């Protein structure tokens, strides 16, 4: 075990904040347990507990963001405990710049989702399931052990199933079953792939079994190229369903439409990111050679998803389904940038994940408030809302423009970098994908026109304006949307080192393959040489040290 000991020692020097991730992770669980022991007749107390624990996660994640070493490409706040020693399964947590962003996103959006919506019955189980969902997602983003990740990934399905089935609208049982079966079946493939990888990789001590992510990524000597490509596919299908990538997307509109507001917000903002995050941290990091092999396929599917999702969104008659299909389109940008496999594209991809979480989370919150007032999502039932509720319309407009990708708001930066990175790697894909921005304007503005413009019909005359509580909930999101559009540097500078390390990792495992960077003209001065020629080794210190320990 000396190698692994070294590994954790190597991390410690980075900071003394090793307790931070376990604390963040434990908070929702503690909240859930407390709620279980609270009387059912005290819904206000239950809500307070839920609010406090989710606020605690958000604050903790904010602290982590603050103390995070910006220049360090490796894993930070790493902690590890043995779980199943015989198989070297560990309860190992840690974040890179990439996963840190998603932890932060989870903390912020789960808190606002609780703030912005209330269940109409059975508060107790509702909040328990919400908190379990947050726990599972946080765990999946923090995990540095493939087995732990798998457990958390699977765990996230259960609470969402319960939330849709128990508190949803309309055909909620159908939607919940579809979601559960579809995502569960897909992850069975991942389970098989994971076991085959762990058994055959010989990456552990003395060539034994291990589930340690970094060891598997750097020391997997027993995996042939062909096997690696198959295993990649096993993981990728599970993530493609979760993302969702065309043509595995049809569970999403149903799940979104029938889910309660908080469920929709968490689903769009956080759960979908498990898919793209998985593609990044498990598919690309564990199988860098297979990633270059499968990249054209995944790029093609994302381009189809971007254009197709937008076109189908335009024809929906239910407002929530429009936003659901827009997620198919937007998540396509995340996968697109990722499989450009260059620094610009992957940074764009991570930004798309964060920005989509914020903008679509905000859209679902607003739609939830719309439903609370009118008990419908049908566009034909709504008209002239801007006249009766200018605040509501104003908030919706900003979020919508962010979602369309208007520069100056957050959505643009990620999409642009994603497309730019893709252009460098596969130009025609980027040119076609960019048409998605035209259709995005079409479906959202058209829906906006039908719902918010035009004369106020009788049924919408009494539409109440946003309450102060709701304003307090949406204003921080709008502030984030503007801030990250004008000044995304705080995110980019934390993401960049990890992304560079990942790209270097891919280069290392692909002989003669290099990241696509622009041709540089002699004479055109470029003021961008920050730290070229540094030593971007494996993605994490743990992997490096593990290798030395052998």
């Amino acid at each position: 075990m000396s190698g692994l000991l070294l590994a954790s020692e190597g991390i410690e020097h980075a900071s003394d904040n090793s307790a931070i991730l376990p604390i963040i992770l434990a908070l929702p669980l503690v909240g859930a347990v407390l709620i279980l022991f609270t009387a059912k007749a005290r819904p206000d107390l239950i809500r307070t507990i839920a609010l406090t624990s989710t606020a605690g996660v958000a604050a903790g994640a904010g602290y982590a963001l603050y103390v995070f070493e910006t220049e360090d490409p490796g894993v930070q706040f790493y902690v590890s405990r043995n779980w199943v020693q015989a198989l070297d399964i560990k309860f190992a947590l840690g974040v890179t710049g990439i996963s840190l962003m998603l932890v932060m996103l989870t903390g912020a959006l789960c808190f606002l989702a609780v703030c912005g919506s209330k269940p109409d019955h059975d508060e107790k189980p509702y909040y328990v399931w919400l908190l379990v969902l947050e726990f599972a997602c946080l765990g999946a983003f923090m995990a540095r052990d493939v087995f732990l990740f798998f457990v958390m990934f699977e765990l996230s399905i259960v609470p969402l199933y319960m939330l849709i089935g128990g508190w949803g609208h309309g055909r909620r049982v159908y939607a919940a079953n579809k979601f559960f079966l579809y995502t569960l079946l897909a992850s069975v493939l991942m389970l098989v792939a994971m076991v085959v990888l762990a058994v055959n990789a010989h990456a552990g001590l003395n060539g034994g079994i291990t589930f340690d992510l970094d060891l598997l990524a750097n020391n997997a000597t027993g995996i042939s190229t062909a096997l690696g490509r198959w295993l990649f596919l096993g993981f990728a299908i599970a993530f493609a369903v979760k993302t969702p990538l065309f043509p595995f997307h049809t569970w999403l509109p149903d799940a979104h439409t029938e889910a309660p507001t908080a469920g929709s917000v968490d689903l769009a903002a956080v759960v979908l990111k498990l898919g793209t995050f998985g593609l990044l941290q498990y598919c690309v990091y564990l199988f860098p050679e297979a990633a270059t092999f499968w990249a054209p396929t995944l790029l093609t599917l994302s381009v189809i998803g971007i254009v197709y999702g937008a076109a189908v969104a335009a024809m929906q008659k239910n407002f929530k389904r429009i936003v659901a299909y827009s997620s198919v389109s937007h998540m396509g940008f995340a996968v697109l940038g990722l499989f450009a496999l260059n620094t610009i594209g992957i940074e764009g991809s991570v930004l798309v994940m964060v920005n989509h979480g914020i903008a679509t989370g905000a859209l679902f919150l607003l739609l939830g408030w719309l439903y609370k007032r009118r008990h419908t999502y049908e566009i034909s039932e709504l008209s002239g809302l801007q006249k009766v509720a200018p605040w509501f319309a104003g908030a919706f407009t900003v979020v919508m423009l962010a979602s369309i990708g208007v520069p100056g708001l957050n959505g643009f930066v990620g999409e642009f970098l994603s497309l730019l990175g893709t252009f460098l790697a596969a130009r025609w894909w980027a040119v076609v994908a960019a048409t998605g921005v035209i259709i995005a304007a079409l479906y959202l503005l058209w829906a906006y026109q039908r719902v918010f413009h035009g004369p106020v019909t009788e049924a919408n005359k009494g539409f109440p304006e946003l309450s102060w509580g709701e304003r307090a909930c949406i204003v921080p999101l709008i502030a984030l949307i503007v801030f990250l559009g004008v000044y995304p540097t705080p995110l980019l500078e934390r993401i960049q080192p990890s992304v560079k390390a990942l790209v270097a990792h891919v280069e290392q495992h692909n002989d003669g393959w290099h990241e696509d960077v622009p041709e540089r003209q002699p004479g055109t001065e470029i003021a961008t040489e920050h730290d070229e020629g540094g030593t971007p080794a494996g993605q994490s210190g743990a992997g490096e040290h593990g290798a030395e320990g052998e």
Partner: protein
Amino acid sequence: MALSVALIPLLPLTGFVILLLFGKQLGEPWAGWLATAMVAASFLVACGVFIGLLDQHENVFVHDYFEWIPAGSFRVDVGALVDPMSISMVLFITGIGSLIHLYAIGYMHGDPKFPKFFLYLNLFVFSMLILVLGNNLLLTFLGWEGVGTCSYFLISFWFDDPANASAGKKAFITNRVGDWGFMVAMFVAFFTFGTLNYEAILADPSGVSQTAVTVIVLMLFVGAVGKSAQIPLYIWLPDAMAGPTPVSALIHAATMVTAGVYLMCRINPLIGAADSWVPWVIAWVGAITALVAASIACSQMDIKKVLAFSTVSQLGYMFLAVGVGAYWVAIFHMVTHAFFKALLFLDSGSVIHGMHDEQDMRRMGALKRFMPITAITMMVGWLAIAGIPPLSGFWSKDEILGKAFEAGGQGYALYAIGTVAALMTAYYMTRLIFRTFYGGENWRVTPVPEHGQTMAAAFAAMEPEARDAARDAVPDLDLAFTPEPAHGHIDAEYEPHESVWQMTVPLIVLSVLAITGGFLSLPFEGLNFFEKWLEPVFERSGVHEGEHSMALVVILLVVGAAVAVAGVLFGYSVWGKKNPSTQRALEPAAAGNGWYYDIVITRFMGGPGELLFNALAWFDRTIIDGAVNGVGVGLVAASQVMRRGQTGYVRRYALGIGFGTLVLLGFVLSKVLVS
């Protein structure tokens, strides 16, 4: 210098933020005064920057403020590029902008959303200033999208009417087609140059692949065609007149729509380095747009629609100038056009205001008596755009035509097209003036269309006697156009009135500018101040001034003046006198309907386009989701079959076990016996 340059856009932004937070509290008219003051202050600062720029090396000032997007080898800063071209743009944007803000205080009087209107206007000015001051393509794109978004807000400002809301959406989406081109151009530019900074891109494009430069220029041109309403993407601009008239003047005439021309002028070294056919494409698109739009303007009934098509046409002239390499002339015409077109729009707004929202010229006439200031200032605008010397439009338009002529080859054809369009321009503006300000008081005899009703329908529904009287006064009441929204509702007793001082003062200032603007640059050595001022911006464009004789210049000027006078006289002979048959002959329904181009596009989008999208939605529901559910159904069906075995009867299981044992026994026995 860095601070004062930053102040130029920050002042309107401050106005926007204050109005966002306290707009309602400020209310009317203080919200308007605040917004006006912010833009006027920005203009004063810009004047200071202009004077400061004279001291700078080569009159250029560049400054990076902060890092906007750093990602890998990609990096874009928020930075300013102040050079003779951008400061000229800034001066006329803030100058005309503050006049239009002042005007809007009077025009928007009594509107319940008064503060919100000025909020959008200030945000617009901010975005426009970012567009022209940005020192890289991405920052220009930020402003580009910002002005587009404000334009969307302002076109659909009176969103209760579905037509206005549709017009806003149409403008945004049509522009998005152009934005796609802009984005692809940025990808190629980064791929080629490794940066999006103007300084680096424009420094020396001769060393890079000509194909790449050609693609960049063409894709940016796609963007410019969208923003500046050229063929084939011009359809959004006439509809954009649904917005309040100050918006039409500021955004859809003077500033935003010229952004495409600005962009083309900014990248002039790239146009010079692109394939040699690229400038001709630009010139031809411009010339044909100028001609087609002018021909449509000749048959419009809505006073703002005439001016809208006129704007499309004048923008075409600017692209013609860009295409023949006369970049400074494009900017020159942009400035004079901003003067006289803003004036014309504001005048039309004053007319509409005085006529209580009536926009149909068939219901106007004899208004000179009721609103003399509006009438006189609008006539200044008329003579300026018609190209009557020595007003501003004469100098800039003839400079463009002269440059086209000097280009030779295809240039002669372009010159001919431009001259025909100039003749039409003089004609349709004369028609507008005489229909509006002279003749009889037609609103007293013509019918009032109800909401959604066309004039032709209202006319057909009249009593026979009244109909004859109306036909005698106005010969073309039976012409119907699509779409033709009716706004006005004044009846025969209505008395038009002149506008308030907040509206007339900008009219007077702008008419002085429209008269004198041309003297910025006269085509004579020593008097071409504006040309000399802009010269350094375009010295890397690869265009070299040919030797041209003074005689040719004078001949072209005389021809230009003669064409303008001919157009005006012809217009007068038709519309200044009672000449119903000629009047009708000059208004073919096809031209009035914009040669049916817009209608065909709309039908296509509503027909095959929607059908395709619906087919995709059907495919998603039936095939893709059907496959998923099919797997589920298949599994259930399979389990139904399997289930038959699980009956729960012990005797059945016993039978099964017994049968199985027999088979096994038989198998084992056969093996044993055979061996």
